[in-house]
């Protein structure tokens, strides 16, 4: 009952999406994410996890159904505002980090939000130290290790101070040492944000409160409660 009293952070109703070639990618997805929750999206490759993620901040729009973020329907007009509330950390840090320096990348979101100069600097500093990468601002992304790139990727989103963070396969490709470090960071993030994590990682699943199992573009089942997730 506790959970019902919380605000709905994301509400997806009957979401349908077709690939440009016409084949159905998502077929009537229903999903609720409450504020402060950590939700996992699991399922085999090609189940539609990444496509679903792109719908969460208006990078794709549904063919049918709707996505609501904090009660506001996501559409062309509202996407700019909603992107300040919910943001995505993509799977491949080489795509997430596209600027010539770490600073430029972390500052990219805040600058686009139209923040004042001092505020941008403050946010970059804060985001980088939050992920343990303070002092890397002037490094070039292609000189960072994979684990460092992953952490900076999170900082690029943290600097926008979203309430919800969506992570696509965050631990994929990390070595056991970088992974351990990264898991601590995710636990820290969990305390302050609503998280949606697409993953195959069993250890990461234990961090999540609930999970949605996707298969063939549909929600196959909802896994409620930490015990069942395990």
């Amino acid at each position: 009952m506790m959970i019902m009293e919380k605000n709905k952070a994301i509400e997806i109703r009957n979401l349908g999406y077709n690939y440009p070639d016409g084949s159905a990618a998502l077929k009537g997805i229903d999903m609720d994410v409450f504020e402060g929750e950590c939700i996992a999206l699991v399922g085999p490759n090609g189940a539609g996890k990444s496509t679903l993620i792109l719908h969460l901040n208006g990078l794709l729009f549904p063919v049918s159904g709707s996505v609501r973020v904090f009660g506001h329907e996501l559409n062309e007009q509202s996407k700019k505002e909603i992107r300040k509330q919910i943001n995505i950390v993509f799977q491949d840090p080489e795509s997430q980090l596209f600027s010539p320096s770490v600073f430029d990348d972390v500052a990219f979101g805040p600058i686009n939000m139209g923040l004042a100069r001092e505020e941008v600097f403050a946010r970059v500093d804060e985001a980088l130290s939050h992920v343990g990468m303070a002092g890397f601002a002037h490094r070039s992304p292609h000189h960072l290790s994979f684990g460092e790139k992953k952490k900076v990727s999170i900082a690029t989103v943290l600097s926008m101070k979203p309430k919800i963070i969506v992570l696509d396969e965050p631990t994929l490709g990390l070595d056991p040492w970088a992974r351990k470090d990264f898991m601590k960071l995710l636990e820290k993030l969990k305390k302050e944000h609503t998280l949606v994590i697409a993953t195959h990682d069993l250890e990461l699943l234990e961090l999540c409160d609930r999970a949605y199992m996707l298969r063939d573009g549909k929600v196959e089942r909802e896994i409620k409660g930490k015990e069942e997730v395990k």
Partner: protein
Amino acid sequence: MHHAFIDKFSHLDSPIHRLDPRAKILSFLFFVLIVVLSANGDYTAFGLFFLLVFSVILLSRVPLVYVFKHSLVVIPFVGFVGLSLLFKEGGAIAFSVPGFGFPVSSEGLRIFFSVLAKSWLSVLAMLTLVSTTRFPALLKGLEWFRVPALVLMVISFMYRYFFLINDEMMRMQAARDSRGAPSKLVENISSAGSMIGSLFVRSYERAESAFLAMCARGFDGEMKALCVFNPGVWDFVFIILFCSCALVIKLFG
């Protein structure tokens, strides 16, 4: 894989590195302009121009061998393009090409060597600029000088993704070679073709996903960068000293 880019030594610390990027861009571009405008065959001036850049390189602590080695890259290109200058009419005939009898004039020689010297000096200046300025700072300096944002965006993505694409190619090559590809270049042409093809597709996909990541963080088609400049007295001193030296050499060299 780790690569060093052209701005390999831009992270050193020296009086030249500490200068405002705009001061360096302005001074070195002025230098190139003056060098290009100086009279052909004025070898004293060329020598003095060289001394001017040389002293800046010394101050910057960028390894001399690195700068000189890389500056020579331009010589074959300019040399090849400038070959026809040798046969320009005018002045005494210096010598004839053995076996063909084409006359090479002394005037032609003078222009040929002047063009070589000028282009080499210009490249030297540009290398010094790039080796003493961090690439992002250089881009921001250029932005301040109103270089079109689209051009800067292309350069910035090139800087970010060039080595990634290079790495991908090296991995594909390794995968091909480890499966016993023929060692002769000619026999490899068909596989090279498909490698280039898949590299193109991968780069295209990369561009798409990077674009999505940009949109997710509020990109609306306009690149807004934050320029941080802290100009000081030394920047003005450098501009005035460097430019006036170049001007004096041009006028009285």
